[in-house]
């Protein structure tokens, strides 16, 4: 038998036996992103060189994406500093965390990035980003009930931004709409730093009964391993073909494309099929196939279970019969899941799959050998201890160092920028900000998403948080995502806290009690010590803030290498906060609906303009320090907002964030179609545009003002009467009065005129 010969039509197989006999065969591990030390480690683990299939498994499982090798030492802080929470049913480490929301219901939620693919092929990149996070939620045993999308693009007028935005938004909508998941919120942010590094972070939330939680584990020797869902094709396996072509069959294996293509219809079938499978309690373990596909599912299931698994790769249904085993192992084909099923339940499992037109195939068996063994065409090509691939990947303590330019950046305070002072200048600034892409109305994007499907959407964009009713009510959940790359660039520790602060505040503004956190950490290259410092500081900041606010991190995702050449993006932690509503009928909206309501401002305003939208929009200035996080004030504000909502005191509430008071007021006016008149005692510029934290504006019936004031006093939240709702203009006494029609035109016109 020739080793890599071409004497027969059948290409050679790199078997375990062969690997033991031919230690010196050169394998293209470097092309697969593995360094010498990592490769040597694989050899030590196996006591021989890996087969090409084994190398495929280790290289993907030990990639940054799957192993978190650069971030793991830092992420531990989320666990170390986790506040105690009775609500936490499943913490970090599973596909997604699960929290108890009361009344016999649990909720699982997670946010994940699909940044790089969304730049290469925006539609498919974003679509498969949504598809991937939905399968994570599904694999916890939950019914997915909503999605959110947090998006960042390059400069709005840059030539490529239109392509990326158009494709990404169509992709998020195309997939989520077709899947029947309401989109209940997100972000759209523009900044030149994201030009060639758009950020597409997708969040999914699902609902389940605590007793229905599923885990990614393969216990019980003799249990069957079933691969179900779409066929396996050459999606996302650029790397694998290096292996196949370099080692074997040079001519017939061109480098394969690395684009993954989504099929939302298949995912919908998969979802309904899983719901019936869960209802009949047919699985002992289940795992979605995401990055690293079959490699990841088999190693992780086996490692978390009895420890062994035999898999016959010939049984994997292929969309392309020419795929080699390495490619099957690394394929990132979408809409696939793997289940572990007791033999007696296999027939019923397959029957339900058939009912939903979901292909399903038994491909393996759980064993107690402690080894993951795979055969292909009758030969053993993989024989490894699965835990070494799944859990024992390399861990790096990458060097980090405060970026050299940070001192200068922080010293470059916005205080010296000329401020508007006359009524005309203030008015112009209000208009200018309202029509700037980051602050303008996002309906151009959000109207492409179905927010009504499933019939449980209580609040969605443009309210501060999405709110979903659970079961038949009255309980429900609220979710918001926030992140600010400019703040985080100026101070990563504070920036991460500010992101959490804002999401926490958004959730509380609707009247929900914040409960738990998910996060997506978007950064540059971990090999850049400056970036690594930003990362470490951000994680530290977030962990400390979660502890202070009493909300644990339940899961998340890290995306590194978001940079162009040596220029990283602004570090952008995107934080999702989940809150609970005991009664969703008490939810509070942002819109000013009733004439004559009193407007109160809660919280303290300081002159804080570092990283502000004002400095950004008017001067393209980024410097100084971001607003000071004040977690105690944030918690106090939330307690007032939640308490007031529970008592039904609030007719409207809107938190203050990007763009400050001016922006919050005009959004509430435009949403409800009613104007307002306010009086500003202090420096009107600071009052209108500062981005100090822990503030919200509320509209209350004059008779209830005293009660709200009492709640504020009890919680030590400063409160001040601002003015009154009514009329058809946004009026600041003694300064300006802008007709809502005029405001509406700039606010709503901005994105359509750029991208319509």
């Amino acid at each position, binding site marked *: 038998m020739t080793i890599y010969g071409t004497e027969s039509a059948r290409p050679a197989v790199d078997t375990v036996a062969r690997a033991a006999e031919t230690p010196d065969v050169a394998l293209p591990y470097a092309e697969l992103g593995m360094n010498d030390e990592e490769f040597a480690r694989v050899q030590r683990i196996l006591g021989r060189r890996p087969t090409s299939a084994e190398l495929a498994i280790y290289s993907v499982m030990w990639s940054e994406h799957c192993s978190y090798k650069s971030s793991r030492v830092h992420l531990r802080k989320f666990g170390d500093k986790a506040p105690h929470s009775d609500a936490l049913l499943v913490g970090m480490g599973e596909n997604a965390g699960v929290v108890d929301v009361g009344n016999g219901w649990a909720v699982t939620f997670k946010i994940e990035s699909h940044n790089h693919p969304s730049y290469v092929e925006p539609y498919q990149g974003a679509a498969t980003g949504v598809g991937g996070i939905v399968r994570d939620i599904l694999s916890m045993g939950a019914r997915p009930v909503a999605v959110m999308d947090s998006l960042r693009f390059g400069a709005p007028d840059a030539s490529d931004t239109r392509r990326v935005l158009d494709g990404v938004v169509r992709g998020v909508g195309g997939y989520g*709409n*077709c899947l029947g998941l309401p989109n209940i919120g997100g972000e759209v942010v523009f900044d030149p730093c994201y030009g060639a590094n758009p950020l597409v972070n997708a969040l999914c939330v699902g609902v389940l009964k605590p007793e229905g939680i599923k885990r990614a584990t393969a216990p019980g020797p003799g249990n069957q391993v079933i691969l179900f869902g779409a066929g396996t094709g050459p999606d996302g396996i650029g790397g694998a073909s290096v292996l196949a072509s370099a080692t074997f069959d040079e001519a017939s294996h061109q480098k394969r494309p690395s684009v993954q293509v989504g099929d*939302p*219809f298949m995912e*919908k079938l998969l979802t309904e099929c899983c719901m019936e499978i869960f209802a009949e309690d047919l699985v002992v373990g289940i795992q979605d196939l995401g990055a690293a596909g079959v490699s990841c599912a088999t190693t992780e299931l086996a490692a978390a279970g009895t420890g062994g698994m035999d898999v016959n790769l010939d049984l994997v249904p292929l969309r392309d019969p020419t795929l080699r085993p390495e490619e099957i192992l690394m394929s990132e084909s979408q809409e696939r899941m793997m289940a572990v099923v007791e033999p007696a339940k296999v027939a019923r499992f397959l029957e339900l799959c058939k009912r939903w037109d979901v292909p399903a195939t038994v491909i393996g068996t759980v064993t107690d050998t402690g080894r993951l063994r795979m055969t292909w065409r009758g030969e053993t090509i993989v024989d490894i201890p699965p835990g070494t691939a799944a859990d024992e990947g390399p861990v790096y303590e990458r060097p980090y160092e405060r970026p050299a330019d940070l001192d200068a950046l922080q010293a470059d305070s916005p205080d010296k920028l000329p401020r508007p002072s006359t009524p005309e200048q203030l008015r112009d600034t209000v208009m200018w900000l309202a029509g700037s892409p980051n602050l303008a109305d996002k309906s151009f994007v959000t109207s492409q998403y179905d927010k*009504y499907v*499933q019939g449980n959407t*209580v609040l969605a964009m443009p309210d501060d948080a999405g709110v979903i009713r659970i079961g038949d*009510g009255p309980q429900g959940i609220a979710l918001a995502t926030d992140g600010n790359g400019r703040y985080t660039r100026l101070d990563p520790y504070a920036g991460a806290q500010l992101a959490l602060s804002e999401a926490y505040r958004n959730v509380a503004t609707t009247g929900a009690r914040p409960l738990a956190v998910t996060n997506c950490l978007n950064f540059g290259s971990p090999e850049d010590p400056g970036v690594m410092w930003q990362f470490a500081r951000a994680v530290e900041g977030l962990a400390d803030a979660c502890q202070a606010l009493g909300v644990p991190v339940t899961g998340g995702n890290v995306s590194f290498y978001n940079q162009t050449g040596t220029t990283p993006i602004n570090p952008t932690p995107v934080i999702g906060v989940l809150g609970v509503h005991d009664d*969703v009928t008490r939810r509070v909206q942002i819109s000013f609906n009733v004439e004559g309501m009193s407007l109160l401002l809660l919280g303290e305003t300081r002159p804080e303009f570092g990283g502000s939208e004002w400095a950004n929009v008017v001067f393209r200035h980024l410097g100084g320090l971001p607003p000071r996080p004040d977690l105690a004030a944030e918690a106090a504000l939330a307690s007032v907002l939640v308490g007031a909502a529970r008592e039904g005191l609030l007719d409207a509430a809107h938190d203050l964030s990007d763009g400050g008071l001016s922006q919050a007021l005009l959004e509430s006016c435009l949403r409800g179609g009613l104007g307002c008149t306010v009086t500003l005692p202090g420096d009107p510029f600071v009052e209108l545009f500062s981005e100090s934290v822990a503030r919200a504006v509320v509209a209350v019936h004059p008779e209830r003002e005293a009660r709200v004031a009492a709640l504020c006093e009890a919680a030590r939240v400063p409160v001040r009467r601002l003015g009154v709702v009514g009329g058809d203009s946004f009026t600041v006494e003694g300064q300006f009065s802008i007709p809502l029609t005029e405001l509406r035109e700039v606010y709503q016109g901005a994105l359509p005129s750029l991208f319509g």
Partner: protein
Amino acid sequence: MTARVGVITFPGSLDDRDAARAVRLADAEPVPLWHAATDLSEVDAVILPGGFSYGDYLRAGAIARFAPLMERLADAARGGMPVLGICNGFQVLCESHLLPGALTRNASLHFVCRAQRLRIENAKTDWTRAYEEGQEVVIPVKNIDGCFIADPETLEELESSGRVVARYVDVNPNGSLNDIAGICNEAGNVVGLMPHPEHAVESLTGPSSEGLGFFVSVVQRMVSA
């Protein structure tokens, strides 16, 4: 006797459970119907819900039309059973030739989701008798293939015989000819509607509860029949 209203689930149907909720809120009994079934379970009326049956691949509604249950439904519809197709259901009814015309890509080429004002133009159909003619209601639309078109003769015939059931007011979200949001067959028992009344049955979760009338209408008809 409570009316039994069937809701068909095709692979890819999305608003089936919402339609069932709306039926329940109208004090009728929703009966889930599976696309591959061969009988209508003795229901009094049928709703074809919104969604993306078969992913809307090929054309919206094109594949669902061939479901085994659709043959039964076509017979029943011709026999006078009330049938309401919402969004994707409307598309299926057109593809099945139970209603004339076709629904094509929105003029904007975008998916559009908005709270939409409609005018009920025909309050005599089995699904609109709870409304007044000319009454305006706000109901969500959400679709990408919602642009109703028909040849000029068909259009003329629909208009002159009062078979335009609902029309968009203020904004035409998809470019439909004559702002048409919904139509019916000659007998008025089969109605196709692009907007989603089942998402306007509770003010907590919809822009209004003004969509409930469609479901109440069919229940009233059952009672009066």
